[in-house]
């Protein structure tokens, strides 16, 4: 099977894909994008969270063929070259990364949360990230990281005189 879709802004084609391959498998095995992780492959842990046409999905629950002609954004698409996205910076700074296997999914899910809710309460953070399992951190510093990212993203941009609003 051949799958053509846009991934992180670039048109991509995967050839010779077995029909049963998930979007996660297409990304990891056919497009050299292993950032989305394979921890449960059952939609329980959120380690494979990506955007599909702007909606947060578990890539392991999407059949590869369903991505045909659509737009996918993965964790690899969030940084601007060498410059980390503020959500990524916040995870690092807050100490929200240990083994890091859950981190790509949490970074994408946090990005999605802050797009919808720029200043989430702790309760809103807990609800939004309830589908992302982390086995190392006990989530304390993940909550810190989301608050930190929210603060950074809504700070007035230096010199633009406008301030406010997420810059996602």
């Amino acid at each position, binding site marked *: 099977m051949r799958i053509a879709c846009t991934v992180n802004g670039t048109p991509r084609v995967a050839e010779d894909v077995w029909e049963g391959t998930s979007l996660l498998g297409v990304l990891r095995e056919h497009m050299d994008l292993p950032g989305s992780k394979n921890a449960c492959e059952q939609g329980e842990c959120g380690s494979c969270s990506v955007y599909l046409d702007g909606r947060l999905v578990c890539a392991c629950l999407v059949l590869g063929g369903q991505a045909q002609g659509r737009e996918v954004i993965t964790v690899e698409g969030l940084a601007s070259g060498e410059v980390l996205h503020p959500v*990524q910076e916040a995870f690092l700074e807050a100490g929200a990364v240990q083994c890091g296997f859950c981190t790509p999914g949490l970074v994408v899910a946090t990005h999605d949360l802050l797009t919808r809710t720029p200043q989430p309460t702790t309760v809103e953070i807990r609800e939004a990230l309830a589908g992302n*399992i982390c086995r190392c951190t006990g*989530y304390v510093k993940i909550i810190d990281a989301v608050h930190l990212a929210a603060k950074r993203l809504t700070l007035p941009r230096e010199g633009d005189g406008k301030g406010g609003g997420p810059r996602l």
Partner: protein
Amino acid sequence: MKPTPVSGQIGDSPRRADGPQKVRGDFEYSSDLKAAGMLWGATVRSPHPYARIVAIDAAEALALPGVHAVLTHLDVPGTKVYGLEIQDQPVLAIDVVRYWGEAVALVAADHPEHARRAAQAVRVTYEVLKPLTDPELALTDDAPRLHPGGNVTRQVKIRHGDQSAQAEVVVSGEYEVGMQDQAPLGPESGLAIPDGRGGIDLHLATQWLHVDRDQLAGILALPPEKVRLTLAGVGGAFGAREDLSMQAHACLLALRTGRPVKMSYSRPESFVGHVHRHPGKLRYEHGATRDGKLVYVKARVLLDGGAYASSSTAVIANACCFALGPYECPSATVDGWVVYTNNPPCGAMRGFGSVQNCYAHEAQMDKLAAAIGMDPVELRQRNAMKTGSRLITGQVVEGPAPVAELLDRIKAFPLPVEGSGSGRGGGKVDLTQMPGGVSNTTHGEGVRRGVGYAVGFKNVGYSEGFDDYSTARIRLSVANGRPRAEVHTAAAEVGQGLITIQAQIAATELGVTDVVVLDADTQVGSAGSSSASRQTYITGGAVKAACEAVRERVLALAQSEIGRSAGARLERDAVVSADGGLIVTLATLLGDAVVEETREFRPRRTHRLDAATGQANAHLQYAFAAHRAVVDVDTELGLVKVVELATAQDVGKAINPQAVEGQLEGGAAQGLGLAVMEEIQVKDGVIRNASFTDYLLPTILDMPPLLMDILELGDPHSPYGLKGVGEPPTISSGPAIVAAIRAATGRPITRVPVRPQDIVGA
């Protein structure tokens, strides 16, 4: 992997060296590895917990498209069995399978789906046997003998003080702990690449490269130097990666096919691909005076080790040595057994024997407090272990043992306001704060609050004479006009932050700002395992020792080139005088020279427990933590919401405070998991919930806020005074939660994880 330099001294919390790659999705985990011409391995596993293998027919599998090899135990060229303590586990089953999911045969194919189908097409004929699944039965003569030496993997006896002591107040109880899974998110995985000259390179996720290397050399019948291991990214461990899983299998397939072979377990396969925390049955009797001084404790500990030994012999020793908890007691009688059954094999998991017994001794302390009408914290403090106390093994506790102080500190935290967010205070109901959560099962009616305390301890490092050491190689040179230190060890970064900590130690000892930690591999001496809360102590000690040797040479060089300067030291990339004045920069002093030193670090020796009395100086260091839990329990439905946890722990010296906090937080969450959620359900030897849908892990909604008080009391024997940090948070957090549930419900609650029927049942 591209090494990222780290700046930051001990006591700082620099950004983790592997952090940028991890947040970008660029960090290469063992499950991400690839090689040109790579094949995929798959494992044929037993569908029975106990059976004889009558025949294996690979013809059909070999005829399928893309299949390159099918291997059985007949294809294992060297040692056919392996094991960390006792070599009893077949690389591939030989004539008999002893647990559900045991590896029987291997397949290599050009696509994971082809490999999976071929594995299904390997026809194995079994003669099914009745499995032995009751550990009590395993102790009797009526049980089938699962191994030649019988079913008792190890018995531990501890006899301390007056064996016929009597007491005014006696309480007893029986407690049961379920089987917990480490559930690291990264699957067992790796890539084996044959070198074309009979040797092999294996890139993998493990906790101890050298013990894997040595076991593989035996299995593959190769000299150790032909088996080279490199640590790939490790997606968590917690004990699950101490034993071999796919290592030998991938190497066997790669050597047979002459192609790189990747293996990566699915989550269901991971549940049978590694050992679990031992389920336990513990029977205790505590005797005390009316004013609350312990007189004696009798304990019987039975752990189900499952089909193979793994690290069971060390786990039962811990469960017995620390059976009483961190308390002084003049007399103790402890009998412990770990037995073989046809249940899933059990071995190392964070806490390692001290988790099971903490549920029992802390329940007993609460029971005793109630029996004599004393505050449970006061009772604990009255009996608290302190520096100079004698353990039931006869060993004297050296260094800080602040048990009473830890309890003071958690008690001093203000309690959360009752009814906050519950609607009971008249405000809007926040369902996420309710037992049952957004299932909307209560708005506060039937909800009772409880508060519970627990304290626990365990050993840091290896015990009972096991040779505990680590090796570090430090190379100081000048790159791009700046001094740069390279740290090379075989120590496994499993997420805890060890790479960063090694760099911090080197930066501190050498006064250089640019430190790079090389990939861990077997091209340097053993570091021992990333377990037993030991790596910062032991590998940290090795890095410190090797840096000291490099520093000595650099200062000698400075003296010979420039002249003597009393009190000269390394700081800010230079040799500076006693008052901090610049003598010479390292860049100038070293030029093209390279200073390299390798050192082993060995802490004090420990000794094996006496078989008859359990007496010995068996342990290196002890780490203590205490927890307070606040819970809300829906007493009608038996649902629990952990409202808040508070902890105090002595870490000796926080080398990296942020990483220390991370250990306390993550460890508490795993303790919470065992207390109220996590259990591998085994029925007739078969795991019924081998997935993340059915095995319940704490989510961000389950983990409450955690208040922390971190003490740095300094151990006089360890590098920088540090103590192992990783395991204590997992020991007492769960027992505090269960104590709180008892307080809320008035029910005895003798089993974990606590189920709704334990709260509302008859």
